């Protein structure tokens, strides 16, 4: 009975999440095309390109005007057909949706990967490592450092360090890119210790150790910027959270029983707070996907955020939609897995009962 109920719940949940993804991606497609307005921009671009290409072609310039006109129109039509601009936008938008949902990301219209491929998949995969190495490192440091520091501080509630961290919390009002500018000013511009931006030296070092060293040197400033921008608020939030949980009655009882503080922390504080910690961790991981447009711009970092920015600037809808759809799937899958995980970790969550849902 229970198994059936869980199964039914999971199926309902999966379907509803999938519908969410469908609607979200479709809205993203509509926005990325500005409801079809981008088509007009692209048509004008094609016209201009064909016009100048014909102008530059010597053999065509000698044709009589009527003939030339015909050649131009033909080429425009061909180019519009190639991009599918000859069909109404609404029809195409559903094609886009189908392609996006089946993850056949197709070909970019203008962007190419550094290797020259026009496959959206290749373009995205090429940028993925850059984003992962920067935000992966930084976000993992923030996540684990914040939790450890918060546990430490919640034990020394009201102490000097605790108050110092609270005093530093307002620094998180400014985003990471903002600190990035300051760090560049100090360490790159003034002291000339670290590079202004980019991922490796130009030209990239040949040997692997030299390459790694160069990468590390370029990583220091952006990671520092992310840390300054988010670590104090993260510590503060987790600290408050742990404090609330450590004032529960069962913790008092455990203390009264004389359990060592390590055991109390593990069994009575960390265990019940595990679900939110896992949730936060999962969302940290998927937030990696979008990169950070502004931070990557400030540091000239060749990651997914920059890619998205370039794609938008070039009206390259397939790349924009590709990036959004992958994020949507990651989000949906994560939420789904968290639903299951909650049921496993938290005995209080009874799946499929009552009116509300657990997440």
């Amino acid at each position, binding site marked *: 009975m229970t198994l059936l109920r869980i199964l039914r719940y999971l199926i309902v949940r999966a379907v509803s999440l999938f519908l969410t993804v469908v609607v979200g991606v479709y809205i993203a497609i509509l926005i990325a095309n500005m409801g079809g307005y981008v088509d007009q921009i692209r048509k004008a671009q094609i016209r201009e390109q064909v016009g100048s290409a014909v102008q530059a072609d010597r053999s065509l310039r000698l044709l009589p005007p009527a003939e030339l006109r015909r050649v131009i129109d033909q080429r425009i039509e061909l180019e519009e057909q190639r991009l599918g601009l000859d069909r109404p936008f609404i029809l195409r938008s559903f094609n886009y949706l189908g392609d996006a949902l089946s993850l056949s990301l197709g070909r970019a219209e203008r962007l190419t990967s550094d290797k020259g491929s026009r496959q959206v998949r290749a373009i995205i995969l090429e940028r993925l490592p850059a984003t992962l190495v920067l935000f992966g490192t930084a976000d993992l440091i923030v996540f684990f450092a914040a939790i450890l520091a918060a546990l430490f501080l919640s034990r020394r509630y009201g102490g000097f360090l605790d108050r110092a961290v609270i005093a530093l919390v307002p620094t998180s009002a400014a985003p990471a890119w*903002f600190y990035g500018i300051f760090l560049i000013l100090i360490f790159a511009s003034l002291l000339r210790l670290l590079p*202004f931006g980019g991922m490796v030296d130009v030209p990239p070092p040949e040997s692997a150790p030299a390459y790694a060293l160069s990468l590390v040197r370029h990583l220091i400033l952006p990671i520092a910027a992310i840390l300054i921008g988010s670590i104090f608020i993260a510590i503060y939030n987790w600290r408050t959270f742990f404090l609330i949980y450590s004032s529960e009655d069962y913790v008092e009882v455990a203390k009264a029983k004389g359990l060592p503080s390590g055991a109390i922390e593990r069994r009575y504080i960390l265990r019940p707070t595990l679900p939110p910690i896992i949730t936060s961790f999962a969302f940290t991981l998927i937030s990696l996907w979008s990169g950070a447009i502004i931070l990557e711009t400030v540091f000239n970092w060749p990651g997914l955020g920059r890619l998205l920015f370039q794609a938008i600037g070039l009206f390259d809808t397939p790349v924009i939609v590709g990036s959004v759809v992958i994020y949507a799937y990651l989000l949906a899958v994560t939420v789904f897995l968290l639903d299951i995980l909650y049921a496993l970790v938290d005995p209080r969550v009874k799946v499929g009962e009552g009116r509300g849902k657990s997440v």
Partner: protein
Amino acid sequence: MSALREGLKEFTRYPSAIAGLVIIAALVALALYTVIAIPYREGMRLWRGGEEIWIENPRNARPGWVNFFSRARLPKTVVVSSEEGAAQRKRVRPLPGGLRAVDISLAFNYPYDAFPSEINLFLKASFKERRSYVSLFWLTPDGRRVSLGERSLRAYERYSISLDRRLAQKLGRVPPEIALFAGKDAVAETSPPLRGRYELRLEGLFFEEESNLEAKLVVYGQVHGLAGTDHRRRDLMVALLWGTPVALAFGFLAAVGSSLTTLFIAAVGVWFGRWVDALIQRITEVNAILPVLPILVMIGIFYSRSLWVMLGAIIALSVFSLGIKLYRAIFLQVKESPYIEAARAYGAGNFRIIFRYMIPRVIPVLIPQFVILIPSFVFLEAGLAVLGLGDPVLPTWGKVVNDAYANGALYKGYYYWVLAPSTLLMLTGAGFALVGFALDRVFNPRLRTL
């Protein structure tokens, strides 16, 4: 409401909160001062009016206060014009044959320890058919006389002395703005300029009755005003001042627009329940998939960069933000409380209950979040500007940072250009965050018991 007043009393006991309030008050005062002292039209004229408005400002000049910190006194801009104080500066005497000779002497004192950044001479001549003819001489404090050439004048002429290649060649391939101010045997560029009285003398001939000539010498300094200038010679003070009301208004309106609508929708969803609640929940989930910043970038590139369009888009995207889930949890508890039942018993309508009984209960939770939200929108606007998507008309702090970045301010060492707007941004962030976090500790019941 008495709880609110008590909370405020407790709030004033946090020194950080007081500091935050002082910062916010100062920013608001600055914004009010700006709007009154430099009305919108005047601000736009000063910032976007065209080159003639800022032609007498030096390019990329540092702020004036750097002189307090360095031993060497950096030069301010010197403007000497024959139109003002004309009696001594311009002399016209008749010559035989209907000609007239004109002598203009533009003298100025130069007490600084660094060379000027540029020298321009603006000449305004009036004539009917025959152009006036003029020879230019540069007189240094140690009595040298350098010829700057001769020319026949058009109606309006700008002689960029510092860009005159032939003159530079003549002066030993040293840029004129340095060579003309260097001592006699000085190894230019390393040694300081010669201090004292300099003079630019124009000796000319008028061939007609109506001929006239006015000259204005501008020796551009290295410092300007309190904020310095940018690459187009514009006084950064205008942008920094006008950025204040723009940033505050933008942050405040965006925070009001997004948090109040979110609150209202959460309350409606909880109160009506059933499909209304379900629909709101689903929309929230769809909304979570949409990437906010990329959409704003798209709007900026495809449609409009206007600050107010961005404001509308930000509010529209954050109406169904995840905050709804938080408020929903609180409202679910509130909905079951007895006083709501009492209100229902006396026959209060749906929206009366929502507005009079439900929303006020959440205000204490809302206020701190609201205050903390304001700077996040200010920084969002600045971030869009850093991406090159700032408002095309209004000067904002973010646009100043973007200008600085685009012109390599950090590479070239124009730190003031980045520091001034960033400091203002930082103050805004710190002010609201200090107040917000203090309010959070006062109003958040779970934190108060700790």
